[in-house]
């Protein structure tokens, strides 16, 4: 799948940037992350088969921002940010594995990262059914992932 970067950005860039801004709360960091989201997608464009890339871009942006939040470990400024930090910290201590998992899902070989699932449900407000549709899993699979995440971070019990 050949991609014209400029055209691709024209269509999806604002959406990705808004996503990164929502998660990172910082225009400069969001713009930086947005560039890297497209780099991630382009890195594997040969295998990109989805004809509705918005879902893949949003999930990639979510995962990338979670990784950045995990690295930054800054003090949350509100409840949403606190929730995000908890998800980022709790998801998988081996961050790169989570990133690999998401990339693999993007290219249709594996499931979404647990952190992405948690953000879609807990922060974005998607129903379990909608999350399942977005990440290509069963509702019970989504529920199980969320349960595992909660087990890793007991504090998530209070906000879910």
């Amino acid at each position: 799948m050949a991609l014209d970067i400029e055209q691709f950005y024209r269509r999806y860039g604002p959406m990705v940037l808004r996503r990164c801004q929502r998660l990172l709360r910082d225009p400069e960091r969001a713009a930086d992350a947005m560039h890297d989201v497209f780099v991630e997608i382009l890195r594997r464009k040969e295998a990109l088969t989805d004809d509705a890339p918005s879902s893949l871009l949003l999930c990639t942006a979510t995962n990338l921002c979670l990784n950045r939040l995990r690295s930054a470990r800054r003090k949350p400024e509100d409840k949403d940010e606190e929730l995000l930090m908890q998800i980022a910290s709790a998801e998988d201590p081996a961050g790169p594995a989570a990133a690999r998992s998401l990339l693999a899902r993007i290219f249709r070989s594996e499931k979404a990262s647990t952190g992405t699932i948690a953000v879609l449900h807990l922060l974005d407000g998607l129903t379990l059914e909608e999350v399942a549709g977005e990440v290509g899993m069963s509702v019970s699979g989504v529920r199980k992932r969320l349960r595992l995440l909660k087990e890793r971070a007991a504090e998530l019990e209070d906000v879910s």
Partner: protein
Amino acid sequence: MTDRRLPDYLLERLALGELPKDAARAAQEQLAREPGGAERLNALRASDAELLARHPPQAVASEIARRRRAVIVQLRRRRAAWLAATAGAFAAVVLAVVLRPGPEQTWIKGDAALLVYRSRGAQVEQLQSGATARAGDTVQLAYARAHQTFGVIVSVDGAGKVTLHMPEQEGQAARLVRDARTELPHAYELDAAPGFERFFLVTSDSPFRASAALEAARKLAARGNAARTEPLALPKGFEQSSFLLLKESP
């Protein structure tokens, strides 16, 4: 959840027309029930225009391409680590030059072509067919302007040896990246085989086994010097292009 506000996530996908049919209908109904729902779509479009003005597509595309090349170079460096023992620092230089920015890297039209880059000492260059090379040179292969779907790259050397370069293992032909310059995962070092090294890119719109190209290459290699100039004998439906490297005497 019927009274909830339509999540921004779904609104984005709705605005792009990328929600599945049923989900799109449900989202539109939800938006219609929401106070100010219709305005949210308008606000999104206004935000699109504002963000594209603040981050112009040409500049962003250029920065994405720059970062992408940097990432690829990093990956190539990892993949080419095996070269360190023989080619040392040259590997990274080869790859940096291979991945030099170029507008054609994203969109290339025309006939498929084999590209060969050579690192010798501190010098890295793209070679033209018929160029000379010598044992110890590090060579990176790439292809461009592929308009067929499947491909194999093989080489025949002056000693009659046939080597498969793409795919990395015998089996089905590789699926080609169309309209983009694509480097093979590994550079390699030329050995001391005398005379020449000739590379063939064999392509087809139908899947085929690498053995078809290998077999044709072996037959040509058995004809000695004819392998410098003659094409591979391939069935109808295949296309081929070749690249000749002449070997300097040690």
